[in-house]
């Protein structure tokens, strides 16, 4: 549904978006991650046709956003950053205005507004002026506006920003439910959200795509992904380190904690050797040495670690 090729946006000499390409198909939920100012919002603004790119092409549902903006815009529902709304209108008035601009008339318009109100839990504030709403309601009004015409493509800039944990949960469920029928792109700072909702993640840093894959693929890029973590009592750290280093499937070890006879230690897998099980080797070693194991587990990479590793300027990349 969305095809973006070699997208570039320059603000003066600064490249806000530097040669980004990606595609989103129907049924996909794409999460945009990145530090503040990485170019997420700028990219979304270009895809929705709000700002023209310096170069590159954007197609939505086969329509070029620059050449044929109107048919492309008809397919898109857009929630801009901070969910702006006309302060002097009621929720009802605002949603009917949005529906009218989307070409809905009469009964179709009324039922579209009803549906959006219900979907976003706005019944309580339906006839309230937007200016008087709390941040959560304001945000959901913006979300309702983007869903009013049941769009094929949904683009949301930080859809859960400013919501409380329950509302966040509701919005995530909503996105997940709609994800099977639409092409959805949303940006966020919250990593757990990405894991919960997205079928694919793109991490943007300083205008470039630095990672693109499923949440699991990205987690595998964490330095500690696949490492064996163990807590042992009554064995000196030095002895543990020596013994673990002897395992052929381990690359190196790291002592995480060492006090009062309890040692926590991590053995990193040797990633050059495929098809070996580090955890099994560690377990065998522990049994052989009769270590008193409190805990032994394989570590899954965490997205925030991957995120830090690939977006921080001075870390070694390629883990």
């Amino acid at each position, binding site marked *: 549904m969305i095809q973006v090729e070699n997208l570039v946006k320059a603000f003066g000499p600064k490249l806000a978006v530097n040669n980004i390409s990606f595609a989103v198909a129907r049924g996909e939920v794409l999460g945009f991650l990145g530090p503040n100012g990485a170019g997420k919002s700028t990219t979304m603004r270009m895809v929705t046709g709000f700002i*023209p790119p310096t170069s590159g092409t954007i197609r939505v549902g086969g329509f070029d956003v620059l050449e044929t903006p109107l048919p492309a815009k008809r397919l898109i529902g857009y929630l*801009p950053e901070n969910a702006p*709304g*006309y*302060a*002097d*209108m009621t929720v009802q008035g605002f949603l009917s205005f949005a529906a*009218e*601009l989307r*070409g809905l008339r009469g009964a179709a318009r009324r039922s579209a507004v009803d549906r959006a109100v219900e979907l976003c839990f706005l019944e309580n504030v339906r006839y309230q002026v937007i200016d008087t709403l709390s941040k959560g309601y304001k945000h959901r009004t913006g979300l309702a506006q983007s869903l009013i015409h049941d769009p094929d493509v949904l683009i949301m800039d930080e859809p859960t920003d400013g919501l409380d944990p329950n509302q966040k949960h509701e919005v995530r469920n909503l996105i997940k439910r709609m994800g099977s029928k639409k092409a959805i792109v949303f940006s966020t700072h919250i990593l757990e959200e990405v894991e919960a909702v997205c079928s694919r993640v793109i991490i943007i840093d300083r205008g470039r795509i630095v990672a693109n894959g499923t949440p699991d693929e990205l987690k595998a890029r964490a330095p500690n992904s696949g490492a064996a973590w163990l807590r042992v009592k009554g064995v000196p750290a030095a002895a543990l380190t020596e013994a673990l280093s002897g395992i052929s499937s381990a690359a190196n070890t790291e002592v995480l904690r060492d006090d009062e006879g309890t040692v926590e230690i991590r053995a990193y897998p040797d990633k050059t050797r495929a098809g070996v099980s580090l955890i099994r080797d560690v377990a065998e070693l522990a049994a052989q040495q009769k270590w008193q194991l409190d805990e032994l587990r394989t570590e899954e990479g965490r997205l925030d670690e991957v995120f830090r590793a690939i977006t921080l300027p001075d870390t070694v990349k390629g883990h």
Partner: protein
Amino acid sequence: MNAWSNIKAIVKRELGGYFTSPIAYVFLIIFLLLTGFFTFTVGSFFERGEASLVSFFTWHPWLYLFLVPAVGMRLWSEERRLGTIELLLTMPVTTWQALVGKFLASWLFLALALALTFPVAITVNYLGNPDNGVIFTGYVGSVLLAGAYLAITSMTSAMTRNQVISFIVAVLICLFLILAGYEPVTGLLSRFASARVVDLVAAFSVMTHFEGFQRGVVDLRDIVFFASLMGFALFTTGVIIRSHRAG
């Protein structure tokens, strides 16, 4: 067809925006009080002993100088301040549809304010026997004048997200358009410039082109002047909005 229904939706929203806040009513009252004050007190309507609305229309360029920018200053600056411009322009709506819709809404509002001055026309008809054709052309000229100021205000409000700045710049531009053809100024100018230069400068003034309407003369050149002023200012508004988006 589609374009027209988009424009209509925007006009409706904008007009609704005026009337949901008390500002619209305050504005209407101030406008009516001021027109009354200028017509009857400053313009000495009764002392003239004429069955005409000259003392009513003469003050419109000055009255509008502050009132029209006050109505139009929020057109785009508010949209930019709230961020709703991003919403509006990512809808299946072209920039010019949004532009025209917003302009028309404010223009209709001003026309409504002007229409509410109808008691003045009734009064003069009750007291004497005026030429109602002249009164009608006076109203037409006044609506065009308001439209011209409004288009300029729309342009200045697209330049900034600060309504006050947009108001001040609009007043300055409109003031220039008055003064270029204001008699004391043209008199001063004619002392050191040739008559042709003075005429050229005065040709840019709304005063010169509003005058005919007050006398009951509808000159095509005057209509073209106001129409092209509006066209130019709205076109420039579009250019400014587009350039903001282009960053």
